[in-house]
């Protein structure tokens, strides 16, 4: 049974149609990457899946139930969302931030209990953030903060984890750490969908890739099938060459330097 089905989804911001006839279904235990050029609708698709944006037509089923039939709160018990890193101008401790992941499970006047504390601790240990639980969120580095936000998402005990460019401005250590973690979570039973900028990271870490162009899904499948020079040329308007990455057995994209030969610097 697929945990997530998207059927004939259309979405527009005002008059401009951003997502066109998106149609797919995904099972758990998978890490799926969404790649594509700027403005192709990657993040918009993610926010439609999360229920934050409402599609013009088509529907989204979470475990066979239409997402519109979930309340905001119920939705948050199934789907967690990790935002792009942004500046934070409040000083909650990391622990408090992760504890916010329990909001969907608490009644209005209910206080966080032992169980919530255990879940938060577990989420923070998995993400290796427990050691700075008392630190303010704005004292952390970008990579640390991103991990705190993943911990908060884990505290929601989600079936589907959505990540919007989780590693875009992190150094390689954190990129590897966070994407390995995401992949591990997928193998433990979640469906992880991540919007990624870096095609090679996507190729190395994701089981399957969506490649998007102008609001449509151009191709879907394992990296080896999707990452073809003509697909990339079409989605990113750039000529590339593909190598074989022997470590992960996936394609590795490099710039096609031949193209640049006629270009005079001075």
């Amino acid at each position: 049974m697929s945990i997530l089905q998207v059927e004939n989804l259309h979405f527009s911001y005002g008059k401009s149609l951003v997502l066109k006839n998106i149609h797919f279904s995904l099972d758990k235990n998978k890490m799926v990457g969404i790649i594509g050029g700027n403005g192709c609708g990657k993040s918009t698709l993610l926010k439609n899946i999360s229920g934050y944006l409402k599609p013009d037509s088509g529907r989204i089923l979470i475990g066979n139930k239409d997402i519109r039939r979930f309340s905001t709160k119920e939705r948050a018990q199934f789907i967690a969302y990790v935002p792009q890193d942004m500046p934070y101008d409040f000083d909650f401790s990391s622990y408090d931030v992760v504890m916010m992941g329990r909001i969907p499970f608490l009644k209005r006047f209910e206080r966080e209990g032992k169980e919530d504390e255990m879940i938060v601790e577990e989420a923070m240990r998995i993400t290796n953030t427990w050691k700075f639980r008392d630190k303010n969120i704005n004292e952390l580095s970008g990579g640390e903060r991103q991990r705190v936000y993943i911990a908060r998402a884990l505290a929601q005990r989600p079936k589907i984890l959505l990540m919007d460019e989780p590693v875009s401005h992190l150094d390689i250590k954190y990129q590897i750490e966070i994407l390995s973690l995401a992949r591990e979570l997928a193998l433990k039973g979640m469906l992880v969908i991540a919007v990624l900028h870096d095609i090679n990271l996507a190729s190395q870490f994701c089981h399957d890739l969506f490649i998007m162009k102008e609001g449509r899904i151009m191709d879907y499948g394992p990296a080896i099938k999707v990452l073809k020079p003509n697909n990339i040329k079409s989605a990113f308007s750039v000529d590339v060459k593909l190598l074989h990455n022997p470590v992960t057995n996936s394609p590795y994209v490099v710039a096609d330097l031949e193209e640049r030969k006629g270009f005079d610097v001075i």
Partner: protein
Amino acid sequence: MKRSIYFVIAILLLFLSLLISISVGAVNIPLQEIVATFTGGGDETHRTIILNLRLPRVISSAVVGMGLSVAGTFFQALLRNPMADPYVLGISSGAALGATLAIILGFGLISLSFMAFFLALVVVVFVYLVAKTGSRISINTMLLAGIAISSLISAIISLLMLLNHEELTKIYFWTMGGFNLTNWQKVIYSSPIIIISTLIMYVFSRDLNAILTGEEIAEHLGVNTELVKRTILILASLVTATCVSIGGVIGFVGLIVPHISRLIIGPDNRVLVPFSALTGAIFLNLADTLARVILRPAEIPIGIITAAFGGPFFLYLLVKNKRKIKGM
């Protein structure tokens, strides 16, 4: 643990400040006379002063201090802007226009309060409608619309003042704020509005914590952000309009008390809201007492006190906590 100590201290201080402000004034009343009055005895003159003059005034300064601080706390969280105060959406200018009109037209005290209250709400509704796009409210548009309407109304008020020289002092004093015209009637209509609205808003304080970390994020945590925003916007405006209608436009309280409270007790609204309610009550109560006694028997507008004491104290805290305060 540490937090509850702060609360105990704040409650004791509130009690102390209420006692002081009942005791001092044009006539000083000793403690045993106050106790006697409340236990049903005491000197008749003292009794009259306490029950008819001091008590309504002490209560309204405390309640307004509480209301403005709570409204300020909520506005700062909701607008995610440390510069926000209860007047940020133009509520004060609406109220001031109402009061100005009432003074010019020669209305009585209660009608004046009502006019101030009514026009304050009209302004908020207007700002809200301008900022509403579809089912969502744009925070930035709301802030800008608030500034725009405030300056328009200030212009109208200046013109009205110019055309009505003889009422100039009266209007000026009203806008500076003060509790010299307080009576039981005002206390009875204002306190329930302020207290009940505060309690309702408090229900949303955990949701507001999540909203502080970003509206989109809060929505993904299962918070119905539009409902929370709308409720708090309406109730915080109602509280502010009520405060302004009985105390005038008292500046600074709603800006600095929330910040001071945040520095002491942290950003968690579940603790911060009740704490700034207490601190606000203490602060404005003491400020009003000073306003009454500094130039005894004359009074100075309370706005001068709140700015003169609040400003430097806040600067001191800012310098002391330079590292700690990053906006909120």
